């Protein structure tokens, strides 16, 4: 089975070479039959990659330690779920997942792209084939997951205990669906440059893909953030770690792309810019893959460091980013620029959004790469962390957030700020009220905290105002308002939900950072501690045993209003195979807030170091992410974006034309 997987992978590589050459030549020479090769080859390539991935997964599930990758990252005593998720909890397997998703997206285009112009489809599949070929070669040459060991070891070396968590089942696949999803936008852009033609129908194709990729990337980042929050036991949700930035940069650029693609689709303006953004977004995804996979950064994500891999990925990076940008420089002037608009208009607002988002992306890029560049050039080692990003990213984001509610209320081509402001009066009043209430009635609220809460309320209320204004609230009879509300295009709901989610996330961040409290203390069994109105009694440590670990479980009793209100447990786990200790944090969700505690070392006198946090509204940080995802999903359901929609309209016309 393992060898089958290896052969399938080699075959998939061979097919990706066919996929990148034959349709391209076909499109160039206008040969229909050559172009038609692209579809079946892409689908077969996906089937082979899936077979290869299944082979590796079954080796992991069956604990076949004769496979080097399984031996390094699995153990027979692990629960089955971690045996399976361990398939991508290592360098080789995660790269295989990467190409699996790449070929999956390619196959989707091959199957559902029948109403695309033939040459565009052929070129898109060819570019997908190029990306696939590069990564298949990378896997086969430097990171073969199917390498055998002889003699086969009896027992494996266990999966990194930090990764033995449900988060591994969700975070990497979601993140990759996002990262790799942008490859489709990239392929469409390069294909458009090869053809030298781009129009609104191109944007109608690219926008849903951007939405899909953005939706999964949002989910992947939110999930990763929550995983780090509860697993690492530090109580932080974002560390500005280079690896986090690696996923955040494509998200920022992708958000810009999402907005500029709207302008292009609706108004056929910003064509060249949208194309460039699509290229840059996927380039940042590739850069992220390089940063995480090459071992230039030490982190929990850098599974193994091997210089050959780093150099190989760097070559792929240079080839694709350099190649696509060179093609852009050569061909972009051929594309015709689109419609004009007044600076104050929906287009203008979206351009402003793009200006802020791309600048913010650039600051994150500088902060992430500067330490690497400095070390390479001078050998000096610096770390760029939260203080840098607070000073650069923060000031860029605040004005952007403040103008978000205006955007959807401005009309296309020429907007009216005063009319929009009048509609936003209620939202503005609410925001001011929130600032005053926070500042005056909540103890210890700083000016920043009050403004932060106000900004979050402004975003949420602004999103709702948009829906109210578009359904004619206050202007027509309530019954008509309801009917209009129900009839609003789904993309309007999508926009409102995404902006509302952004407000919720901001509210969660402000709540946690500005109103959170923490305590570090040593506790003996029976002692109680009080934090922000919550009383906890330490019940003591008790040893316990899991399938592949032993743990000391600290039990804490939550006491609310003098009554016992359930237990919170936090544990120190010891994984004997890797001789590793991990901390399992204890979390209790109360409303939207959380009580978070993590266990430290046991002192000689039997007392234990305990760190506890009260994190007000913290769940909104990730809840907002889910709402943003829901917004993207809602937009995807919009009729206008559904790929079949134009075809439907064509049918009655055809029926009329044919004499029956």
């Amino acid at each position, binding site marked *: 089975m393992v060898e089958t997987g290896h052969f399938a992978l080699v075959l998939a590589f061979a097919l990706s070479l066919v996929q990148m050459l034959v349709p391209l030549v076909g499109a160039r020479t206008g040969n229909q039959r050559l172009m038609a090769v692209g579809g079946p080859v892409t689908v077969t390539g996906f089937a082979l990659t899936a077979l290869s991935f299944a082979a590796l997964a079954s080796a992991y599930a069956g604990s076949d330690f004769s496979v080097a990758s399984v031996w390094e990252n699995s153990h027979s005593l692990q629960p089955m779920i971690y045996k399976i998720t361990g398939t991508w909890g290592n360098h080789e397997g995660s790269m295989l997942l990467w190409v699996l998703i790449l070929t999956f997206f390619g196959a989707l285009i091959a199957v559902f792209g029948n109403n695309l112009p033939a040459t565009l489809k052929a070129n898109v599949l060819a570019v997908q084939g190029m990306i696939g070929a590069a990564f298949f070669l990378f896997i086969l040459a430097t990171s073969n997951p199917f390498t055998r060991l002889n003699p086969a070891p009896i027992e494996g070396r266990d999966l990194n205990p930090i990764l033995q968590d449900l988060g591994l089942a969700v975070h990497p696949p979601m993140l990759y669906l996002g990262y790799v999803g942008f490859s489709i936008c990239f392929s469409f852009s390069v294909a458009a440059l090869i053809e030298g033609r781009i129009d609104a129908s191109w944007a109608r194709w690219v926008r849903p893909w951007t939405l899909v990729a953005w939706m999964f990337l949002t989910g992947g980042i939110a999930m990763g953030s929550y995983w780090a929050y509860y697993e690492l036991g530090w109580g932080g949700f974002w560390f500005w770690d280079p690896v986090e930035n690696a996923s955040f940069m494509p998200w920022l650029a992708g958000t810009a792309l999402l907005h500029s693609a709207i302008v292009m689709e609706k108004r056929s303006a910003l064509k060249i810019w949208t194309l460039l953004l699509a290229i840059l977004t996927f380039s940042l995804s590739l850069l992220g893959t390089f940063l995480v996979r090459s071992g230039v950064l030490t982190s929990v994500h850098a599974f193994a460091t091997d210089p050959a891999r780093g150099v190989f990925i760097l070559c792929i990076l240079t080839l694709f980013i350099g190649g696509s940008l060179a093609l852009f420089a050569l061909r972009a002037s051929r594309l015709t620029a689109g419609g004009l608009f007044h600076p104050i208009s929906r287009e203008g607002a979206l351009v402003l959004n793009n*200006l802020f988002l791309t600048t913010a992306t650039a600051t994150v890029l500088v*902060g992430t790469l500067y330490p690497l560049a400095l070390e390479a050039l001078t050998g000096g*080692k610096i770390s760029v962390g939260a203080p840098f990003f607070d000073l650069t990213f923060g000031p860029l984001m605040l004005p952007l957030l403040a103008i978000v509610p205006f955007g959807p209320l401005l009309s296309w081509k020429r907007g009216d700020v005063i009319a929009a402001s009048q509609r936003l009066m209620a939202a503005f009043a609410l925001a001011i009220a929130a600032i005053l209430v926070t500042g005056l009635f909540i103890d210890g609220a700083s000016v920043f905290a009050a403004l932060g809460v106000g900004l979050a309320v402004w975003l949420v209320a602004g999103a709702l105002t948009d829906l109210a204004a578009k359904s004619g609230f206050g202007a027509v009879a309530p019954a008509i308002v309801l009917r209009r509300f129900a009839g609003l295009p789904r993309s309007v709901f999508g926009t409102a939900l995404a902006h509302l989610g952004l407000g919720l996330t901001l509210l969660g961040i402000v709540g946690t950072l500005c109103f959170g409290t923490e305590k*570090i203390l040593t506790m003996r069994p029976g002692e109680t501690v009080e934090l922000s109105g919550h009383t906890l009694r330490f019940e003591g440590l008790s040893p316990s045993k899991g399938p592949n670990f032993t743990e000391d479980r600290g039990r804490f009793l939550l006491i609310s209003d003098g009554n016992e209100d359930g237990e919170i447990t936090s544990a120190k786990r010891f994984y004997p195979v*890797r001789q590793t200790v991990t901390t399992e944090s204890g979390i209790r969700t109360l409303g939207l807030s959380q009580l978070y505690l993590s266990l430290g*070392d046991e002192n000689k006198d039997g007392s234990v170091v305990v*760190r506890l946090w009260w994190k007000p509204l913290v769940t909104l940080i990730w809840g907002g992410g889910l709402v943003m995802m829901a917004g993207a999903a809602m937009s995807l359901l919009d009729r206008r974006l559904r790929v079949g929609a134009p075809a439907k309209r064509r049918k009655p016309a055809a029926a009329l034309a044919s004499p029956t």
Partner: protein
Amino acid sequence: MTRKQKRLSVILAGLAFLAAAAGLTFYALGQKASYFYMPADLAAASVPPGQRIRLGGLVEKGTIVRGQGATVAFSVTDKQKSVKVTYTGILPDLFREEQGVITEGAFGPDGVFVADSVLAKHDERYMPKEVADGLKAKGVWQESTN
């Protein structure tokens, strides 16, 4: 304003915005990036008290002292010099004697390094990269510690 002037002013405003962002970025890089030192480097580079730096090395054997509450004192060494560090909080799970560690914080007026975060290696296989490189450069790297 004519159309041309309008367009020009929009472009100028955009450029001014970008320049401001770039200026802010470079200012922040100068002010907010923290440099990494090993104990022996500190003699050459005079680091004033209060300036944030990252200090890395090995946790010196026999120096871990648990004080009042959750405060811990230990020494970070590169086998040439060592620096006393105090830290209040929960030490990472992989914090052990003779193991690589990176602490972040600033020197107090008494010359003791007050750390507000302590990072150990991620699992039993990896040493923090800066520490490993630094020890290699100083010739005190032993493959067995990897």
